[in-house]
């Protein structure tokens, strides 16, 4: 059969290439080439505006970075931000999703209302919260009301611990609804018959949550954690805007901010490329981890 249609098949396979080729060209030029180029450039001492040809220095950029306090501070800032954001995001979005599914009225409304902050751009989010964090602003008013400490300034944007907390809070606020929606979709995909069977077998509500919902939701939980982790590792806008408006840079000098400053402000292309490659490897590791864990735990029902 196949041989008689080979003419048509050949024609169709050409059309396949026709549909695929533009994107393939695009990805080669704007994804593969730049990452190879970043790897290559990271081995040179290179400045943007300098006319001198770049000098090959091998792994010196990497060695420099590994010995630089500034770089380790960026790694620290990035991980503090990532861990501080993704764990609360995971816990609270799962909690809210389970609770929303348990109410009778207003599910749709609550989902949309929680999702609303995700619609605003990150710059707008940062601007809004900057006003809330003003010494005389809402942030202090609310904290002082809750803890009954009138007139205290909590230095949201000035104190080095508080400014880290502030960036985490902005991100948490912006993405909580997004992950609630993902969890609700994951929960809705669990067939109701499983719960009926469990009820017949005499399982209580809590039991069926821990024995059915939780294990079956594991792929979604892994997916959400890796996604939020990768998202957090790339954070830039909030930190950039806070620093531009006068917050101390060191506590929130995340890797992306450091890459930007090193490459664009200080013109040190080689060194910032080395940092890019390190960021890439960190993210690649987490993606690999996701694939590995989600493959092993993939359930069928």
């Amino acid at each position: 059969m196949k041989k008689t249609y080979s003419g048509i098949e050949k024609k169709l396979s050409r059309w396949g290439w026709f549909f695929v080729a533009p994107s393939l060209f695009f990805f080669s030029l704007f994804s593969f080439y730049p990452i190879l180029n970043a790897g290559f450039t990271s081995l040179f001492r290179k400045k943007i505006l300098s006319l001198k040809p770049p000098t090959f220095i091998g792994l010196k950029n990497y060695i420099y970075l590994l010995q630089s306090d500034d770089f380790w501070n960026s790694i620290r800032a990035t991980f503090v931000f990532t861990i501080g954001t993704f764990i609360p995001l995971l816990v609270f979005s799962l909690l809210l999703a389970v609770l929303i599914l348990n109410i009778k009225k207003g599910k749709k409304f609550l989902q949309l209302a929680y999702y609303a902050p995700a619609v605003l751009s990150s710059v707008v989010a940062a601007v809004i919260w900057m006003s809330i964090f003003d010494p005389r602003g809402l942030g202090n008013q609310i904290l002082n009301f809750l803890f009954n400490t009138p007139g205290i300034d909590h230095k949201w944007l000035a104190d080095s611990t508080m400014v880290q907390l502030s960036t985490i809070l902005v991100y948490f606020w912006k993405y909580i609804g997004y992950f609630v929606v993902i969890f609700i979709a994951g929960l809705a995909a669990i067939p109701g018959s499983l719960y009926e069977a469990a009820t017949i077998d005499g399982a209580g509500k809590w039991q069926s949550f821990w024995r059915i919902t939780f294990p079956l939701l594991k792929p979604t939980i892994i997916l959400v954690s890796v996604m939020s982790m990768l998202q957090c590792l790339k954070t830039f806008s909030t930190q950039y805007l806070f620093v531009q408006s006068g917050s101390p840079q060191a506590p929130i000098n995340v890797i992306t901010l450091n890459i930007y400053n090193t490459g664009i402000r200080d013109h040190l292309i080689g060194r910032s490329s080395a940092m890019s490659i390190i960021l890439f490897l960190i993210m690649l590791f987490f993606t690999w981890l996701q694939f590995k864990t989600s493959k092993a735990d993939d359930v069928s029902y």
Partner: protein
Amino acid sequence: MTNTNLISRPGRIISPISLLIWIILTSALVFTLMPIVFMFSASMMPSKDILKMPFPWIPKEFHWQNFTKAIAGNDGSFIFIRNFSNSVIVSAVVTVTTVILSSMTGYGLAKFRFKGRNIVFLAIMATMMIPFEAIMIPLYLVATKLHLQNSYGGLIIPFLVNAFGVFMMRQYLLPFPDEFLDATRIDGAGELSIFWHIVLPNCAPAIATLSILTFRSQWDNLLWPLLVAQSEKMKTLPLYIVKFAAEKYTDEGAMMAVAVLGSIPMLILFFTMSRYFVSGASVFSSRKG
């Protein structure tokens, strides 16, 4: 979907547990909506009212100067209008090209058999693992070589298509019946016209979702314009907001007004097409490793 119903007790109107549930859900609601309501009220107040204690949630009168300041800018140059239009143009063009190129590629990968198809698919998927933040410096060098700084080309070209869009369109088209395509071929339709008249219209829901995702991520894009658009004229809205906020840090009212202006297009989109926003988020949950 009440299958995870942990605590419904018929007969009682409010049980302590459901009261607790409502308290948690309501506090979360206050937490997510409070800053948005704050933005809108503050944008209509003089700055001295915004920092009053306690915050007067309802503005006494409409303080429209905030908005004129936001639009006129610090120097009265009205560059806001240009920057805002740049954002609209860039986001719209990127959305259109992403939709067309992603569905073309997704269609090619889902419905045609050719040598190397799997390699092409894997290669495109692999680019999803390359974070933009890690390639921005070499990408900037590419853009410099192509003389794309301070131009629409520079803002648009690196985003013409994205791997996630390709993945999504391919997944959407895989179950599309081949017989249907073959039948149209036998009727003499050309491949391009099949794509344009049959495949694209059948992808409408996926296209709507992809459009929203793309438009929003472009509207939100700060990092790339920061690199490639140094001239005031080619800046986009996020850059305008950053600059405005850094200069007007003490004028909270004007800052909130510029935030409102930057959010209104997305909020309108959200209220008219919230279905697609939500499906855009949950697309991920069907993506298994």
